[in-house]
């Protein structure tokens, strides 16, 4: 089939293998570089006062991002309140009730939503909530993040429930248990770990989002627990500090980035621990 000498072909094969390996290294390199720089530049600035203090007024050095860290947790909490019930129950519909055609279109729409740029969610929620309320608010920010969570959670829930063995459902029905009970107490419980994993990963993803918060939660340099008022968020604060012309703010942006990465990392490690035990895949 090939008249070229075997040696040359073998050499070519090895050369391509090496090239592929180098590409893989090159792909992972930015991760290493970003992490190294965040740790090097951020670690020296993350201390107790950074975690517990409000931002200082412009021009004064010091201060922290305590309000932004708490604000991010509040926003993600609101997003969970909106995204999780809709996402999980929507996923239940796909795996337990929907017809093939219906499921196909729901998945299609969910994938389209997943691909919608996050900045678009920002302006949509601005028009939907901020304009009628006449103020930026935590509600609006949480809603934007929650909307983003819905398609993610629907898809992971469906995938996880698909792993639950059909025998469990049939067994429950054979015992005369109403279908909804078998879904809630047996199917959802069996797939629970996987679903929670999906929810946590969705949380980690929206926690790092900045664009949808720019014109919804807006940001705040003070403590705010009023959900109808603008609220600070960590990614947004990092952005503001990064593009500001003050060196001290740049330093704090790196510190904020380190905190944000650590939160995301903590969630990821939590997920690893959670999925280490028995999962629906193991029972299949």
């Amino acid at each position: 089939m090939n008249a070229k000498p075997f040696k040359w072909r073998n050499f070519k094969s090895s050369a391509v293998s090496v090239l592929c390996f180098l590409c893989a290294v090159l792909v992972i390199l930015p991760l290493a570089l970003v992490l190294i720089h965040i740790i090097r530049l951020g670690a020296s600035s993350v201390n107790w006062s950074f975690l517990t203090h409000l931002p200082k007024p412009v021009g004064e050095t010091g201060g922290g991002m305590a309000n932004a860290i708490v604000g991010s947790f509040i926003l993600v909490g609101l997003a969970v309140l909106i995204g999780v019930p809709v996402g999980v129950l929507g996923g239940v519909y796909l795996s337990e009730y929907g017809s093939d055609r219906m499921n196909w279109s729901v998945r299609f729409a969910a994938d389209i939503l997943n691909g919608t740029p996050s900045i678009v969610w920002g302006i949509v929620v601005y028009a939907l909530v901020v304009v009628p309320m006449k103020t930026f608010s935590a509600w609006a920010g949480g809603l934007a993040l929650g909307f983003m969570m819905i398609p993610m959670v629907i898809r992971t829930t469906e995938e996880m429930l698909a792993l639950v063995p059909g025998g469990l459902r049939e067994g429950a029905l054979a015992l005369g248990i109403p279908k909804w009970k078998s879904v809630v107490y047996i199917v959802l419980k069996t797939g629970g770990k996987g679903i929670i994993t999906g929810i946590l990963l969705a949380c980690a993803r929206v926690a790092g989002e900045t664009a949808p918060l720019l014109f919804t939660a807006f940001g705040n340099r003070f403590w705010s627990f009023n959900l109808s008022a603008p609220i600070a968020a960590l990614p947004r604060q990092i952005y503001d500090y990064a593009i500001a012309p003050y060196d001290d703010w740049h330093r704090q942006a790196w510190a904020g980035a380190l905190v944000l990465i650590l939160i995301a990392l903590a969630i990821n490690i939590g997920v690893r621990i959670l999925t280490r035990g028995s999962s629906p895949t193991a029972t299949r």
Partner: protein
Amino acid sequence: MNAASALRKPNAEERIVLSRPSKTGDAAFKFLTWCMAMMVFVLVVIIGWELFRGSGPSLKKFGIGFLFHSDWDPVNNEFGALPFIFGTFVSSLVGLAIALPLSLATAVYLTELAPWWVRHAAISLIEMLAAIPSVILGLWGIFVMVPWLRGPGQGMPGELYHPFPLLKKVFGFLPLFKGPIYGVSILSAAIIIAIMIVPIITSISREVFRAVPDTQREAAFALGATRWEVTRLAVLSSSRRGIFGAAMLGLGRALGETMAVTMVIGNRPDISASLLAPGYTLASAIANEFAEATGAMHLSALFELGLVLLLVTFVTNIAARLLIGAGGGPKHG
């Protein structure tokens, strides 16, 4: 089970199990989940409707010309989206051109070549790369990547160890690399975009490669093919469609990428042939100007930028979805 126990009355626990399942509970629960599933359609409609409504005045005033005009002048209420569309497409396509070969090579390495432990480690690392928030990548972009790309400045020692001066020196005769080096530029944005879309393209193409049956590889080996020939003949050639889909999905992400791009692209609404010149994208224009929009028409024009962005990502995502066929067509659900 003996006769006596079969005849006794059911105790409370058994009664719950034995009672006739109520149809209303089932119907209500099904309806509830149905409503939640329908939310995805509601959201699609909400997005489209709100953007359409918001861009009403701008649509009415500029019509289709909005897409082809390059003036962006909030003071005189003249708006045209061309520089943003140009910046979005050029940065995304260049980013895709950088990311695609790297991702494919990585996916080939991970599916065909790597030992299992390298594979595991590399896959988790690439997942971590995907999990880095955009704003953090942007922060790194401004303070680390862009200064490195730009180099120490013209005529300084060691200048040519940095990519942009080197590109300009070697390829400066091409219009692509003409003009002064600012650092923040379309090319910087493209590199950041490439970093952001590599994980998704890699993971999709990895799945596509893995879906190729092993018998095909074995057949190629049996014919005496080397490893690379096996990959090329048995894997790559039958994955063309999937690779194209992965690229479209990556492109969809790239087009809508906001924060990191806003931070390194320079935000200047110019159309320049040079990749080293600053640019502007649809998403970064919205991010920068929306909160400070000066008038109703300005706001409406920004909404229309959002509408354009939505439509563009819609098309790429639908194309990707049809090519990859996740879940297949309606037939196989």
